[in-house]
């Protein structure tokens, strides 16, 4: 297989991650194949401990594979060194975490501009881009607020804006609504829909069915492997009335 492949933005083959040895061997991820096409939203669902978070970290280069190959934007990322991985993370992926992971002592806009600064943008360019992104997620008026003064949903939206800072190929989200209540989840859902309409590729790991239902493809995962795949696009029941038991 050639080293460059332009049809998928993210591709994985035979990805495995093991911990321990012998009797204590834990197969966190056990042979996963995946193809994500540009603009697609893919959701991975599964019970806790099934390895979906680990898989996400592997795909984003935050952790090293035990076996297998991963291509991101046509470039193989599993064998490259830490330095190159870091550079890759600057431009190819944006992360959204369950715990938000914002820096407590930085305001919203300072948090959002951080990846741009790390990628080498000038302070002004990074700041302007951050403000625009905050506007896109609907938090322009909260730019100067500290995370402690923001609600959970707002914090996650700031985190999403941060993930978009360097125009990544794919946004990897790990349980993005795990710490959010119903209303905040709806906000994040709306945002994901907007991003999807804008053509952003999303890979979301979740056990929230509502998030999963927004995806184009839903993959079920259990015990480190994919067990099922459902295509949700373009298939509706056609009749909303059926939802309330009205015979159409």
């Amino acid at each position: 297989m050639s080293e460059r492949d332009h049809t998928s933005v993210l591709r994985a083959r035979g990805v495995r991650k093991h911990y321990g040895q012998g009797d204590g061997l834990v197969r966190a991820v056990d042979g996963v194949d995946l193809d994500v096409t540009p603009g697609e939203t893919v959701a991975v669902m599964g019970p806790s401990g099934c390895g979906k978070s680990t898989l996400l970290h592997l795909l984003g280069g935050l952790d090293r594979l035990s076996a297998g190959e991963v291509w991101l934007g046509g470039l193989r990322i599993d064998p490259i060194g830490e330095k190159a991985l870091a550079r890759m993370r600057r431009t190819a992926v944006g992360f959204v975490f369950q715990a938000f992971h914002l820096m407590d002592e930085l305001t919203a806009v300072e948090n959002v501009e951080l990846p741009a600064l790390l990628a080498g943008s000038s302070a002004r360019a990074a700041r302007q881009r951050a403000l625009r992104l905050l506007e896109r997620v609907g938090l322009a008026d909260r730019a100067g607020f500290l995370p402690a003064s923001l609600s959970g949903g707002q914090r996650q939206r700031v985190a999403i804006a941060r993930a978009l800072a360097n125009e990544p190929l794919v946004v990897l989200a790990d349980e993005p609504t795990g710490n959010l209540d119903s209303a905040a989840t709806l906000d994040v859902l709306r945002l994901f829909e907007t991003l999807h309409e804008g053509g952003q590729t999303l890979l979301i790991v979740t056990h929230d069915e509502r998030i999963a239902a927004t995806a184009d493809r839903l993959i079920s995962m259990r015990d480190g492997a994919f067990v099922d795949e459902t295509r949700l696009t373009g298939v509706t029941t056609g009749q909303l009335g059926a939802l309330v038991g009205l015979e159409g």
Partner: protein
Amino acid sequence: MGRVLLVGRLAARNLRRRPAEAALLLVAMMAATTVLTLGLVLHGVTDDPYQDTREATAGPDVVASFAPDNYMGQPADLAGLEALADAPGVSDHSGPYPVVGAELEADGVTGSRRTPRGEEVGGAAGVWAVGRDPAAASVDQPELTQGSWVRDGGAVVEAGFADALDVGEGDQITLRTRLCTPMTPTTPEQHCRVVNDHSFRVVGVAVTAAARPYPGVCFAPFCPWFAEAMEDARPQGPPPDEPPPDEAVDDERFMEDPVEPGLVWLTEADARGLAPAEEFLSYVVNLKLADPADAPAFVNAHFSSSTEAQVLETWQDIRAGHDQLVQDTQNVLVIGSRLLAILAVSSVAVLVGGRMADQTRRVGLLKAVGGTPRVVAAALLAEYVAVALLAAAAGLAAGWLAAPLLTDPGAGLLGSAGAPSLTLSVAAQVTAVALGVALVATFVPALRAARTSTVHALTDTARPPRRTPRLIAISARLPIPLLLGLRVAARRPRRVVLNTISIFVTVTGVVAVLAAKTLIGQDAQLVGGTDPGTVRANQVLLVITVSLVALAAVNAIFVTWATALDAKHSSALARALGATPQQVSTGLSAAQVLPALAGAVLGLAGGIALFNGLGGGEDGVTGPPLWQMLAVAPVTVLVVAALTTIPARIGARRPTAQILQAELA
């Protein structure tokens, strides 16, 4: 009682959980306590050996020696010396005794001797040989520490001198005298030849209060201190004793002056036998006054400023000579221990601060299960108090064991043998200092922890990082490692300050030590430099320097560890967002190296100020040589960078995923 046990158990368990930290803490406090113990316990500092010796030997109040006037060809004014012995105010005297300046070689150590500095020095030692009566004298009868008093063919060596030469009862020594041509402005070189070369057996070693310690023994006509005092007293005018011009320069008229002389006693006959002829002898008489306090007045009344041939010394001068040996050492040790105490406080404070998150949670738990604020504070302090007590005990032991290892310049006085005594007062002082260090460092955090509301303590929102908008804005314009480093430092300004202080204190100490060494080195060239006082001073300086540097290293490690711990989350996040591990670890290092640089520069000024403030700024030495001063800052920076790079690297290489996952817990 139960509560005390509980507090004790909690403290013990917490210490056991983190043995490495406890050990480092112990080292930090031990450095301070050991040096302090040394300072308090070293011989001559707590007791009064000179006084003991004076009483035991019936020490004189005034020592007067007259020498022949070689320029004029006149023998010593013996009659004048005897008249002095009968002067009003004199209650008793011994002598006059003949004195000869010579060279001493200890057989068995042919051609070289070990100086107290530890060097092998070629050539023989200078010595004044005093001829004494085998019978006991009423004034100044030296007290034997080995063997017996003078007899024919037998010499008694002064104890300090014997210690330096490493000779004892039963050894053979050779005394050699030389006769020299005069030194004139036209012939500045002397030509000397050996006139007498006699071998003696060391029959005893004794201490006396009548002479300055080796190598400052002083009789006419060669007594540097006296000459200096005379210089001050003399009105301006031509120096005396200038030879008339055009005199025969080949005349051998001078006995060679002994260099860095010690003191031995011989029988009168043997002493006279050493001199080439009667007219070359000097004489010394020991006077006891009715009122010892009158000695300076007596000397002022009787000395003549026009000739160097008469030397009068008071017992106060001699005592000062002995005290000098320990004075400098004591000063250095006391100041050194203060510096170390400050450093120790800084170390402990950083450690306590770094563990504060953990502590706060423990406090919250204790409060939640019903602990009163007092119990809570006690639990926090108990750990550090325990370590402090242990450090005090260990420091006392270490200091007590180390004290005999240092050269003892007081060998020439009574009471020098054996281990120094650990009195209750010394133990109390050292323990107080150790406890003080622990309390000062932990007081503020303990207070804050005890006052934090339980809820906050449990949910760990008690210590949010500081936010400084201006620094954040500035850092955005810097290259990435500096961006990360500055933000990491800005989160915990108090730790940055502590770091700077600790480097400042260390560098201050090191600079002061370097300056002191320079001064000592210069002095050594003036008066010889192999004397035990100099040697001990150098040893002490070395001990202080090593302690300072070790403590500072411990400090640097603490700070790095605490910083890395605190920055764990930020670093992991930065890496997740695209910073390379090198950038992160460089940033963490920079966060400490830059304050260290500031501390070093300030410490340079501080050290010079300290040195001069302690009266070290004499003889033109106001600080260490320029190259040393210029080297201080770069060396400090390099050392700090090296020490902090490794933990920073380790911290930066840990898998990001683990850290970020862990934060969820």
